[in-house]
């Protein structure tokens, strides 16, 4: 493979990584818009009961905000050339991301103990929607965690620098988006279902 070829590929990557992500994000937004609109339409049927949102979901909201802040701090550290702090920040982000999933799980356990079921004959529309929306958010978060692990490995290996941090920027954009998506879902659930 010639040098020119490699340069071209690098240029394509530089030009297209972020737009690819942004348009992917648009399609995810449409996916969740479809689902939350479905909730609103179903609610128009008039049979919605209120469900108490578990406190764990409030905690997870705080955790995901903190994780976004930590990741952002990591990015700033790379820009300043302070890789030691960057490593710690990304690691903290990953731990917070995993804690988010844990608190979501605790939330489901609390719901289950209150006899709010996801599926089966005792489930209701509102309970099914509640589990489905939170679970689908986690499904998207798993992609974010995988990219976070890649970024962590690369940060530890000191691959990033001021001139070379595209992968980290793409990952952080997606991570912030997941945080924003959760905050939207949290308030949506809080005021529509709960």
């Amino acid at each position: 493979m010639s040098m020119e070829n490699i340069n071209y590929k690098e240029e394509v990557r530089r030009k297209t990584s972020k737009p690819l992500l942004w348009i992917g994000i648009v399609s995810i937004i449409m996916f969740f818009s479809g689902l939350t609109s479905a909730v609103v339409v179903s609610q128009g049927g008039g049979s919605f009961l209120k469900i108490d949102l578990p406190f764990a979901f409030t905690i997870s909201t705080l955790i995901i905000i903190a994780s976004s802040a930590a990741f952002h701090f990591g990015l700033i550290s790379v820009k300043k050339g302070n890789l030691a702090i960057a490593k710690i920040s990304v690691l903290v982000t990953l731990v917070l991301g995993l804690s988010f999933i844990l608190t979501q799980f605790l939330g489901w356990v609390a719901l289950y103990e209150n006899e709010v079921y996801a599926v089966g004959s005792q489930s209701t529309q509102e309970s099914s929607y509640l589990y489905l929306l939170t679970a689908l958010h986690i499904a998207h978060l798993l992609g974010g965690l995988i990219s976070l692990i890649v970024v962590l490995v690369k940060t530890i290996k000191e691959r990033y620098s001021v001139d070379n941090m595209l992968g980290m920027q793409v990952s952080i954009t997606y991570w912030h988006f997941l945080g924003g998506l959760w905050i939207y879902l949290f308030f949506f659930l809080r005021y529509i279902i709960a």
Partner: protein
Amino acid sequence: MSAHHHKEDFLFKYVFSTDHKMISKQFLVTGFLMGFLGLVMSTLFRLQLGWPGESFEVIDMFMGSWAEDGVMSPDKYLALVTMHGTIMVFFLLTAGLSGTFSNLLIPLQIGARDMASGFLNMLSYWFFFLSSVIMLISLFVEGGAASAGWTIYPPLSALPQAIPGSGAGMTLWLVAMAIFIVSSLLGSLNYIVTIFNLRTVGMTMTRMPLTIWAFLFTAIIGVLSFPVLLSCALLLIFDRSFGTSFYLSDIYIGGQVLEHSGGSPILFEHLFWFLGHPEVYIVLLPALGITSEIISTMTRKPIFGYRAMIGSMMAIGFLSFIVWGHHMFLTGMNPFLGSVFTFTTLLIAIPSAVKVFNYLTTLWKGNIRFTPATLFSIGLVSTFITGGVTGLVLGDSALDINVHDTYFVVGHFHIVMGLSAIFGMFAGVYHWFPKLFGRMMNNKLGNVHFWLTIICAYGVFFPMHFLGFAGVPRRYYTNSEFPMFDNMIDINEFISMFAILAFFAQLIFFFNFVYSAFRGPRAPQNPWKGNTLEWTAPVEHFHGNWYGEIPHVYRWPYDYSKVDANGDYVSGEDYIPQTVPLGDNEKDGGH
């Protein structure tokens, strides 16, 4: 890129290729294979509709135990109708059409070495392939393929015990469609980003061929609407398999009350048609783009109203998202809301008429070269008008109610969406065959194919409007049980005869396609004397498209028959490729 590219082994060149040209051919061949099956299915069920209850050797041969004594059973009839619709709409006209031509033409016409991400592009094809295989497997499971129609309305599709086709076949249908949606999204992502970010020097947005504009709008519509179908399918999967009640409420089946409560099948229709209507334009816009390009090249005239063409496609794309309610006039919708949807729907007539006007004015006094591609493009203009006019009837709630769910609807959408899109696809294949396979197709066979196809197509779908006016309902296994339809049987026979003839006409095309791909005469680099960039690339395929530097662009793509003040051709010939710099005092077109 170096001319001596590295040697690729068979597996990576033909199977797991990341080259957009190879992926384009993979989409084309898979799409056509699926389309052929869809065609066979429609021919078989047309036999039943034309001569209900009669025994046919050919049905016996193809369907075996699915048709005792050569008579198709009612549940297999429903399965065939459903699979025909699904295959034609999604597998042939969405993936086959868009996948083939977006992949082939986007990098070649904007001057890029490949798509933004070859890997995602490859994934897009393989998800499509997997989805096709699962869809075909669903034909052979217990109970048969999905049978609720291609729109799979619940509760029929949501209750596995409803009819035989609501069982495993329906589950596989949903799985296949979920994978299909992923494929389509990966493709669309790539198309949009490639068009926005990888254009060659000088290729401004307003110097892009209309094909590229059409593919861009198609991809944008896809990214916005397919995720909603995914959410729709997901809720259905949960209702079917996990006992939720999103679409189901207080249903009795076989004397038993089911434990579903609170849901509404109307919710499904809202979610489904929010994709479903834009899907019409996902199918249609690429065909319109292809036609714009071919009509301009083959009349040796600049396209009339380049900017108006872009604007009308943009308007159609936008409107497509706010008209979905016109599929639901009979769901108990508030008549005021119905009139809003009527209004937005009828608005689509304006940009559509702009496009038709521009096609006709481009053809007007053109130096037309009647290749099969030209014929099919003009055929598209014809079907777009015929089908569009009946769209005004169906878009108006007061009129629609009278012909809802009759053959009028079947006639309308087959002409405006099915025929227009497939004509565009045929036109594209005849026109870009030299680019795809480096060989020419046979024009004589192509002409025969066109004339037989358009005559049969009108023979099949035009009479359906009369059936619809008489109230004959669509999707019924037979209409022979209803005395008021007894005098319609001749029309059904007439339609079926044309359907059978249309089937044989397509065999001519498939023969021409396969034979020419291997034995056709070698194609010159620029067989149609076109201006666009793909004709500056060498005939042989290699990853990277151009030896040396990517060509730069200096003008719009429609400088055909451009004359100077003396009335002489500017370049001495009746076309000026986009790579030729503007002369002194020469203005760029399209502005």
